[in-house]
């Protein structure tokens, strides 16, 4: 059966709203990056965990013990790069005072990038001869072998300061408790929200949620970083506004006592009359339909066909 294909139906699989929202976030970030180049009075609130970096490095220098840094267990992605970016700040401070550092990586790609970035820091400081190639190590890509390796390192070397930033999973508490047992000062951040409570319990300072992403802007005050942080804040404000509008719209549609009834409901991308009125549910609301795309199985796009002898039997949707 042929059905008319509505405009935007090609976004049936992804939902136009999600695509538009992502585009909006990108525009906010890029616009504010440009804007930040022209303005230098943009405010970032105080983040205690990042203020503690100087104290932690100072403590390690006084004690003559190493600083241990772990950029999480994830692959080379935005989280790992952000973690290593924060660590370059730590390493810059440590390099000036000849404080030993150990950066433990659980992913070979992260290890490669970390090595290059840390070497660059020593180069920029003009003390390339102090760079120890073994200060950046690949321990293991096995989660608990990595946890055992890092814990052993912290215990044997009696680390004075530990920085755990990035994607941590179950091994987060192992790291935190081990560092706690040797009396190290700890600054941690996990992008996995389930590990944040463990870090909060055991660590001295914790960056929660996107304070982790704000770190590069906070430490460097570069226009690119500050601008993108402001763009992120604009996006969050937009989400808050959408939530408030959604609450108002849903309350109006469903009714404060959930008594409103409907006589037709959307099914397979088209409104159909119901046999009998029924109470409206969350799935019937405008906000829900906007976020949950519908796909009518009867839609058909007229397309030319492949010649029979070259048709690929296995491919296609």
């Amino acid at each position: 059966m042929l059905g008319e294909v509505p405009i935007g139906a090609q976004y049936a699989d992804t939902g136009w709203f999600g695509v538009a929202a992502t585009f909006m976030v990108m525009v906010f970030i890029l616009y504010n990056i440009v804007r930040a180049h022209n303005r230098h009075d943009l405010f970032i609130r105080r983040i205690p965990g990042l203020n503690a970096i100087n104290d932690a490095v100072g403590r390690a220098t006084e004690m003559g013990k190493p600083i241990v840094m772990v950029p999480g267990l994830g692959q080379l992605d935005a989280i790992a790069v952000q973690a290593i970016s924060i660590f370059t700040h730590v390493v810059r401070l440590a390099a000036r005072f000849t404080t030993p550092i150990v950066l433990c990586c659980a992913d070979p790609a992260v290890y490669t990038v970390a090595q290059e970035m840390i070497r660059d820091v020593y180069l920029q400081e003009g003390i390339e001869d102090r760079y120890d190639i073994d200060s950046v190590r690949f321990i293991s890509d096995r989660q608990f072998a990595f946890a055992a390796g890092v814990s052993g390192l912290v215990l044997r070397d009696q680390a004075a300061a530990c920085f755990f930033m990035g994607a941590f999973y179950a091994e987060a508490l192992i790291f935190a408790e081990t560092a706690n047992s040797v009396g190290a000062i700890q600054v941690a951040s996990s992008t996995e929200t389930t590990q944040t409570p463990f870090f909060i319990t055991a660590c001295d300072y914790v960056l929660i949620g996107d304070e982790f992403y704000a770190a590069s802007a906070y430490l460097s005050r570069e226009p690119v970083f500050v601008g993108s942080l402001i763009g992120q804040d604009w996006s969050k404000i937009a989400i808050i506004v959408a939530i408030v509008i959604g609450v108002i719209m849903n309350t109006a549609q469903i009714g404060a006592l959930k008594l409103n009834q409907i006589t037709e409901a959307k099914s397979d991308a088209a409104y159909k009359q119901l046999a009998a009125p029924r109470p409206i549910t969350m799935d019937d609301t405008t906000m829900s339909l906007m976020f949950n795309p519908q796909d009518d199985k009867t839609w058909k796009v007229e397309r030319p066909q492949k010649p029979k002898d070259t048709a690929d039997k296995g491919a296609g949707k």
Partner: protein
Amino acid sequence: MAKIIGDKLQSLPKYWLFAILFLVTSIPLFHPLSVPTPPDDGSADLYAHLMQVPAGSTILLASDWTNSTRGDSKGQFVAIIKILADRKLKAAIYSTADAQAPRVARDTIAEINAVRVKNGQPPYSQWNDWVSLGFYPSAEGQLSSIATDLRKAFASKTEQNPATGEQQDVFESPVLQKIYKLSDCALSFTITASKTSDLTVERLLHKTPLVLMVTGVMGPQTQNYYYSGQIVGLAIGVKGAYDLETLMAKGLNVPGGIVSTKIPASAPPLSNQTDVQSIGTLFYPPLQFALWLLIIMVVIGNVGMALSKMGAQSK
């Protein structure tokens, strides 16, 4: 005096705590106990959805766990395989999280089959009932590939056909011969202890109904997907495995079964009740004992703090 007692209560040696925990969690393993706890909504929903899948359908199963999280994940995996075997559903098993995972899955199915054969049941056989599609190091890429073109995502994978002894394309097996795209799979399961749960929701959403089975610590984060309707079932940790075993034994919203007010669907118990209760039922009581110990130690610590404060104030 109060201060001395209070200080002592706050500074109990941690090795004592470890010893007590070891004893307390070991006892229920030797003296099995029954703990009547109602199943979570996510587990009940998962069971209802799985029991409604027509016999002979294929489930896409991402087995992203290894023995490091076997306390949580193995019970979930065993429960799912038992349901699939009982209902004659087929499974295409792959992994994007850990290179060890495919072997761990195969070994676990072999354990299940050993018990099934001993009990006179047919084994859940490779090639006819399930295929192993292997490990793919890039989770993001592979999941995008599965969402776009499932046959190309698993192209060139072969397995041995037991009838002929030859290595054949997995898409010639009874498991995958009628599967051309992801929506041909009745459900997509992900049993994981890592962020592949998030990646699965990001990339496979709206292609086929999704079910996640995660470790206990990932539960709160993963619940968001269940509450928003992005996944149709969620099993969390040892409790999830225990819930599934309870539902497998008693059924959901059927006479004599578990009653759920929030999940309206009904689902019968498994037709064959032999060896239904295993890892979840075995590990759930030790979890209860550990939680009790945790509460007691927290109370002791706070009592100690209160006594220390009282003692300090009275001075």
